[in-house]
């Protein structure tokens, strides 16, 4: 009997934490459900507020429609229609068939007097523009504020910049050429010299393990990276001694410091322009539906998405990107053709002034 009592007692003692744990989980679940419900309510309220704000911001405004662009703006001398007519072909050529979705994201502008200091009502929707902008500046505003349709976070993270149209793609390629030549990375230099595997590494395509060793190949590069970019970050606390060792050319210390960086904070050897040019190349190669294919499957690896957009294998696309960049070598900083004539002209002019000087020193 006493043994039975003992067993019952033991079972009840062992079961009590389980039941209390069970109740804790239930309580947490209820709290989570409550939070979710509050978040949904807040979302609905925010949507209503946005909608009301949009109505307030667009009251008394005109709508300009050019192609798939919809511009809602108050009456003003801003040359928005002309700007839209210039911007539309550039936008259309980048997003291709996906521009069908652009009318869902209208531009909302409020043209304001640039010289007035009168307080205006604060709007939380749209952009204020001084009404004295010319067509070129207005076109740039449209191109730099257009919403890329279905642009997913994975693509945005990899790209490191917004995918927007540009009026001067050759400048972007020239900037990438300068990066390929001057970036302090042997891998980038290998890419410049034609090693496509290196190009894929520095563009962060494919395998993402061991990036430190693949991006910054030599000990000197790793030391320069630590001492150039992370001295303040590592100078305090437990890493201070390792930093000193790194400064004394100990590669193990430099490597350890760089490996201790939070995920995603190792500086990429190439800036966002390089990846932007690659995406533009893929979209150009893939035709009108290329953008739609690029954004069709956000959970797929970036190289597969680019490959699908361009309708070619990733190695061919990267080789095409590299050739395009190498061909876009910027013009050297020599004098323009007229500068020599101008210098000769000014020399002759001042010489003539000297010839006209008086023989009599009065």
């Amino acid at each position, binding site marked *: 009997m006493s043994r039975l009592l003992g067993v019952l007692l033991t079972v009840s003692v062992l079961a009590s934490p389980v039941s209390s744990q069970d109740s804790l989980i239930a309580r947490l679940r209820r709290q989570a459900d409550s939070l979710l419900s509050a978040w949904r309510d807040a979302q609905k309220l925010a949507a209503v507020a946005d909608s009301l704000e949009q109505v307030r911001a667009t009251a008394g405004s005109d709508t300009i429609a050019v192609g798939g662009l919809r511009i809602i703006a108050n009456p003003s001398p801003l040359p928005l229609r002309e700007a839209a007519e210039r911007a539309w072909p550039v936008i259309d050529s980048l997003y291709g068939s996906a521009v069908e979705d652009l009318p869902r994201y209208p531009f909302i502008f409020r043209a304001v007097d640039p010289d007035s200091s009168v307080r205006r009502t604060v709007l939380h929707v749209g952009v204020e523009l001084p009404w004295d902008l010319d067509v070129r500046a207005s076109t740039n505003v449209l191109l730099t504020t257009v919403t890329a349709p279905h642009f997913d976070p994975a693509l945005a993270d990899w790209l490191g910049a917004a995918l927007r149209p540009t009026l001067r793609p050759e400048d972007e390629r020239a900037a990438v050429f300068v990066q390929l030549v*001057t970036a302090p990375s042997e891998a980038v230099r290998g890419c410049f010299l034609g090693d496509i595997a290196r190009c894929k590494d520095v563009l962060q395509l494919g395998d993402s393990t061991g990036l430190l060793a693949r991006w910054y190949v030599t000990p000197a*590069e790793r030391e*320069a990276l630590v001492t150039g970019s992370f001295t303040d970050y590592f100078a305090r606390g437990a890493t201070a001694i390792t930093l000193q060792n790194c400064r004394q050319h100990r590669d193990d210390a430099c490597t350890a410091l760089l490996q201790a960086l939070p995920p995603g904070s190792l500086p990429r050897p190439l800036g966002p322009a390089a990846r932007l040019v690659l995406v533009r190349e893929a979209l150009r190669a893939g035709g009108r539906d290329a953008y739609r294919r690029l954004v069709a499957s956000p959970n797929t690896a970036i190289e597969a998405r680019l490959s699908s957009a361009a309708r070619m294998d990733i190695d061919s696309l990267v080789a095409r990107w590299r050739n395009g960049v190498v061909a876009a070598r910027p013009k050297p900083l*020599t004098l323009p053709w007229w500068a020599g004539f*101008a*210098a*000769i002209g000014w020399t002759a002019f001042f*010489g003539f002034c000297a*010839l006209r000087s008086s023989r009599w020193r009065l």
Partner: protein
Amino acid sequence: MRAMFRAVLHSQWKWSRLIVVLGTVAAFAIPLLSLQGAARADRGALQAPELLRAVQSWGTLYPLLATALGLLMAIAAWAPDHRGRHIHALTLPLARWRYVLLRFGAGFVLLAAPIAGVLIGSSLAVLAATLPPGLQAYPIALAMRFAFAVSVAYAVFFAVSAGTARTAGIILAVIAALILVQVVASMANLNLDLFGAAQTALLLGPGPLAVFAGRWMLVDV
């Protein structure tokens, strides 16, 4: 006329040979020094940014040297005449404009030495250095630019030196008037930027000092 030019050239050489020799040595040395150390192949991928930084830093010396050479050569061309109150020039059986032209030409001939110094120094520096892939050397473009800058600087200072004290006074008065107008405009809160306009007119486009502006790069992408 040729004999006369030779005589003027000889006298001008005597007065300015120190400037010419030192200027030529400096013009020869700057390109060599700008690539010294930075153009080492053992720096790997770090070589290119270091090299460009060094070349850009040393590049600021070319316009300074061009200005200094133009100024000193112009002063040296006229200093003995100023000291002798131009009596020698008045005694010559020669029109004033011909005399000035001879002095002007002789100065240019002497300035050819520093220009050649830049060209030879740049070419040697580039031949001795190992440039990283993607970078290119521009010794001829740099020497041409230096030649234009020296010419403009020399012509400007030569014209000022050849003028009378009255001319110099007028030039100074115009500059002082510009400064005064700008100060008064600032005090009156007027939107007038004379200095900015002057800078644009002198340094941009086909302005007289445009050849001095910008980066002077012996090596670039």
